[in-house]
């Protein structure tokens, strides 16, 4: 039986193939609980100005201890390469991580990435020694260019951020997998457990989600569902599914039937 090897990003080994976002929860307490239930050992967090008028305000990292969780800062909300690079540098200066989930958004309505700016920012940050995880379209050519620019993994979207539409183009994901040799982590667009399972069954190395869990009616239950879906999907991928056929094929032997 083929045994699985862990997901490795740069030189960092992950215990879970599920990475979760920390946005949209009612409280830090709830965020922590959902993360724990999901089994994820890596969480993505946004970089924002400190509230200096009320510094007593609780810090997210008081709940998600960087000694316990791998912290993946992101450049969510950045619309230019310059903004994203600046945000990444600040994030790294905090000392919690050399990883950066690089987002350069091209359009407010679709939140699709600006691939040109993304590529530029990837090149700059990879040269500075960052472990770059770029959020990109499900475009094999772009994926190859990002890897050439120094990306540690490629994070193609399954569908628009927060849309919950699921894996819209499994064929492109498969082509990306054949095109590049770094891990592929599906980022954005999953809605429910079967979406996560499909991504993993295709052979993706990991999946990142936020809204699908935080936005569910019961985020804790969905966190657990996602945990199992990712594990089940991965196992099914390793096990190797049967080929699809148009006609039936009996599973019971037809010899020695009673006559």
């Amino acid at each position, binding site marked *: 039986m083929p045994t699985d090897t862990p997901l490795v990003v740069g030189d960092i080994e992950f215990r879970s193939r599920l990475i*979760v*976002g*920390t*946005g*949209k*929860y009612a409280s*830090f307490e709830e*965020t922590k609980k959902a993360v724990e239930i999901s089994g994820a050992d890596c969480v*993505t*967090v*946004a*970089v*924002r*100005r*400190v509230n*200096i008028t009320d*510094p*007593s305000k609780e*810090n*997210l*990292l008081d709940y998600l201890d*960087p000694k316990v969780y791998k*912290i993946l*800062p*992101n450049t*969510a*909300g950045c619309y230019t390469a310059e903004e994203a690079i*600046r945000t990444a*540098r*600040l*994030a*790294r*200066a*905090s*000392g*919690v991580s050399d990883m950066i989930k690089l*987002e350069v*958004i091209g359009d407010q309505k679709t*939140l699709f990435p600006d691939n040109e700016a993304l590529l530029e920012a990837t090149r700059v940050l990879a040269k500075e020694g960052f472990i770059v995880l770029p*959020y990109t379209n499900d475009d094999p050519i772009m994926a190859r260019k990002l890897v050439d620019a120094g990306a540690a993994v490629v994070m193609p979207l399954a569908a628009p*951020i*927060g849309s919950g539409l699921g894996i819209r183009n499994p064929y492109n994901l498969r082509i990306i997998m054949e095109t590049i040799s770094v891990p592929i982590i599906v*980022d*954005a667009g999953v809605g429910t457990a079967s979406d996560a399972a499909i991504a993993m069954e295709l052979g993706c190395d990991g999946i*990142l*989600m*936020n*809204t699908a869990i*935080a936005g569910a009616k019961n985020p804790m239950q969905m966190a657990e569902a996602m945990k199992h879906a990712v594990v089940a999907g991965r196992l099914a991928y390793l096990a190797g599914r049967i080929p699809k056929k148009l006609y039936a094929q009996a599973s019971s032997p037809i010899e020695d039937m009673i006559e």
Partner: protein
Amino acid sequence: MQITVNGDPHETGPNTTLAAFLTQLNLSAERIAVEINLTVIHREDYHSTLLHPGDQIEIISFIGGGEHAD
């Protein structure tokens, strides 16, 4: 002297180091990052970095966010 912190005007005394200023703000140097006039200041330099009138200071931390936090 007047400086700008996270976009807002702020008063501080002359010869204030970044480390002293963060203490004035009751901010622990852990888990934050600071940029002065677009240059990231590394934590080991907080004590030796003097603030100057007109400095534009950004102090960041981490908040909940995943895919495009608003």
